[in-house]
């Protein structure tokens, strides 16, 4: 993957088959801007939320005056660091929002995964809490040498702390993956020698994402795999 433009093209084509991802741009006039964003909503048991029975809703349509709004929280928790959401009855706070960003790194010339996890009220989870929910943590003890790792960095665009999956092994990994699939292609179809590694570069992003996703708790949808295999 040699240019941002190539990354962008592959990202947009990825979204066609896997529409949970969004393409986000920040500066209007800069062409070389944008990245992929995926948000997953998971519950405490780290399952992606699925449908359950619907709750019954009753709108309370009473007009609210100033006095009806309880502002006492401002007095009770000023100067205290305790987050008073600890004993909340709100099921929303049990929901963890996993935010995955895929940003093109110009120095490594590969896509890089950034991750942050927070609750619905914006409380950020600690790294150890995040780490334990990542499938990658289960591989930790046995194969620490080959699995790439996370560190906390400033998000290159947002400037806020994010966890970054180290890109340093990505080029090597992808070289191996793409050369393996090249051999397979060659075996399948001896007449067609056009499948050079360069041609396979167009699957760089989707191939890489298919390897990385399961490690960080992104389920690859079946329809995306079908979509890719039809290509």
């Amino acid at each position, binding site marked *: 993957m040699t240019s941002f433009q190539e990354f962008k093209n592959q990202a947009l084509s990825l979204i066609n088959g896997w*529409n949970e991802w969004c393409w986000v741009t920040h*500066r209007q006039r800069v062409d070389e801007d944008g990245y992929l964003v995926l948000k997953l909503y998971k519950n405490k048991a780290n399952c*992606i939320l*699925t449908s359950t*029975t619907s709750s019954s809703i009753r709108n309370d349509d009473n007009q*609210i005056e100033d006095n009806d709004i309880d502002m006492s*929280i401002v007095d009770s928790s000023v100067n205290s660091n305790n987050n008073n959401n600890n004993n909340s009855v709100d099921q929303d706070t049990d929901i963890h929002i996993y935010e995955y960003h895929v940003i093109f790194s110009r120095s490594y010339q590969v896509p890089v995964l950034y991750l942050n996890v927070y609750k619905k009220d914006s409380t950020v989870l600690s790294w150890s809490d995040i780490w334990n929910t990542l499938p990658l943590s289960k591989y930790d003890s046995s194969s620490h040498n080959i699995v790439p790792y996370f560190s906390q960095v400033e998000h290159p665009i947002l400037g806020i702390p994010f966890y970054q999956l180290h890109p340093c092994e990505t080029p090597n990994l992808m070289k191996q993956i793409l050369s393996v699939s090249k051999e397979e292609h060659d075996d399948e179809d001896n007449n067609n020698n056009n499948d050079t590694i360069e041609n396979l570069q167009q699957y760089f992003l989707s191939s890489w994402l298919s390897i990385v996703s399961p490690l960080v708790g992104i389920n690859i949808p079946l329809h995306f795999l079908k979509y890719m295999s039809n290509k």
Partner: protein
Amino acid sequence: MATTNNIIQYKEFSSLANVSFWHELSSKKLDVLKLKEDPLPVNAYYSYSTSQQLDPFLCLEYNSFLLTKSQSSNNNTTDRYFEPPTRSFLSNGILYNYNTAEDFKQSPKAKLFEDASKQIWNDIKSGNIEKDPTLLNRFIVLTFADIKNHQFYYLFGIPALLPTQPFETIAPTVTLEETYNEQQIQTLHSSLQSSTLPFFLIKNNADSSISVGSIDQWDSYFNDIEVPTVGFCDPCALSSNPGWPLRNFLLYLSTARPNVKKVRVVCYRANIKVSGEQTISSIVLTVALNSNTEWSGKSVGWEKDTNGKIAPRFISLASTMDPMKLASQSVDLNLKLMRWRVMPSLDLETIKETKCLLLGSGTLGCNVARCLLSWGVRNVTFVDSSKVSYSNPVRQSLFNFEDCTPKAKEKSVAAAESLKRIFPAVNATSHVFSIPMPGHSVSASQEEAVKSVFENLEDLVKKNDVIFLLTDSRESRWLPTLLARYHNKQIINAALGFDSYLIVRHGIREPNANESDTGAANLKGQDLGCYFCNDVIAPTDTLKDRTLDQMCTVTRPGLSMMASAIAVELMISILHHPIKGRAQAETETDIYAGASTPLGIVPHQLRGFLSHYQTMPLFGHPFKHCTACSDQILEEFKNRGWDFILQVLNDSTCLTKIAGIDNLNQEDVNIDWEIDLSDDDDDEKDNE
């Protein structure tokens, strides 16, 4: 499932203000708003839900303070604009930030809410909605940003205007699939896929295809149709309830289209396939519109707090905004990287908890402290009696020119301050005193003062885990050596010559059976010589009668950095040995045989020679008549305590007597210490 003649119950929004939004608000408050309390336009968006467990939410992010292209008055193309992400819809908001908790509490909440409601009503009446349907989605947010503590209080209001009569469904709620055939649904999906319209119209064409259009196309869409079909992008995923945006949309319809008695509403939920491979089904309602419906003047939609009452929510973002916490997290994570990538058995927790006492805050003290800091050590105590002089800062890496002037700072104090400036999370403390030294006699008037210094030093030795001996004289090392030996604390001694250095870890006494209940044999390990073990003379006043160049440390500048680094790395190696300070002394040959720690060997002494660019791991036995660490000396200290110390300070010659060196000469057992010496000679030869 659904019953007819039912008042529609709508699923309300909840707010989701992303961390990046609060970061943005903080910096806006600091750099732009300062003390201004002007209302600020903000933009939020809502999206289709991916789960029934997930309540519809209004999302604010890093870019919420940007205006949309149409909101922006100037057409400057360099401006950045707000754009909702794909498959998301704009909601226009106003942020009221208050400077004080009291202002926030006293804010005219009901009035602001009513203002926003009136604005929606005006837009409905004036026809602005046709031009920009997103104007139906307004919200207000009241905030109090306690920037200093990174705490935020916020209260959202998302007004839904109540009609004079609540809207009712007049037919059972059905699914989209029950209403349209597969091809029509495909048309719907493809028309709405990249649409930014939150509300739309659906027309059944003569050829049984459908068309989707914006709400200003009403007349061309529904010329003579009795029950027109409208739709809205529904952030709710519940099977029988629509989401909040429908409320204002229905009021708009009944006001703008007074002739329409009934309307079919498609609550469109897209066809997002979530990873679980199921989709949320869209639903279709049939709603009665009363011809004379007006806004009742009331509106609802304050967001509740987590306890279900209408009250502000609170969020503390210290963990992502407090630079202190960020620095700590970063430093820890960086060290963990070493563990992940190179050495899984690296014991960072033990290192972090190790308390280090640095006796001497000169070149060695400064460099040792910096190296400890990079290893994640959090507790460092400096001891020194001198002040920072003009010549110091260039060599002593924790000091600056400002530490010498206008008034010279105490070295230990300046060092601790400097360490905290580098890394505020470090617990660095300082003590100003000079270590009592043998042969430096104490007059009766000084006795009390020296005694309290002694007690302070003993206390520090007891409280710390590792003591670095980094002073510039030989005799100042005697008392700490004795105290550490007595209290079983690890000493790492570093000494510099002009172009050579010596690092020694002093031995730790063998734990006796009752002190350790875990397998004594296992813990036995090895005793090692101390700095004084190779001496047959007692330490005495060497500073007397010295020329200036001898008093100052005259050494090659790089030496201190090398020696300091090795001293710290030696400590790290010791901490990684299962029996720590009792670890067998290892030398170069052990590297090949298999080192005892994941970091390599744990040597006893390291002698470095800059002239040869060589460092050698060496080993020396403890000397049973040592003037600092032998059992006789410890016994004497145990029995007489301060009295013994005072005696030594006044006349150090008593040491050789108590240690038994004097006897040694008389008893003619020279062979014993000649062997020791010859060991030493061998070492020297190795070095040549």
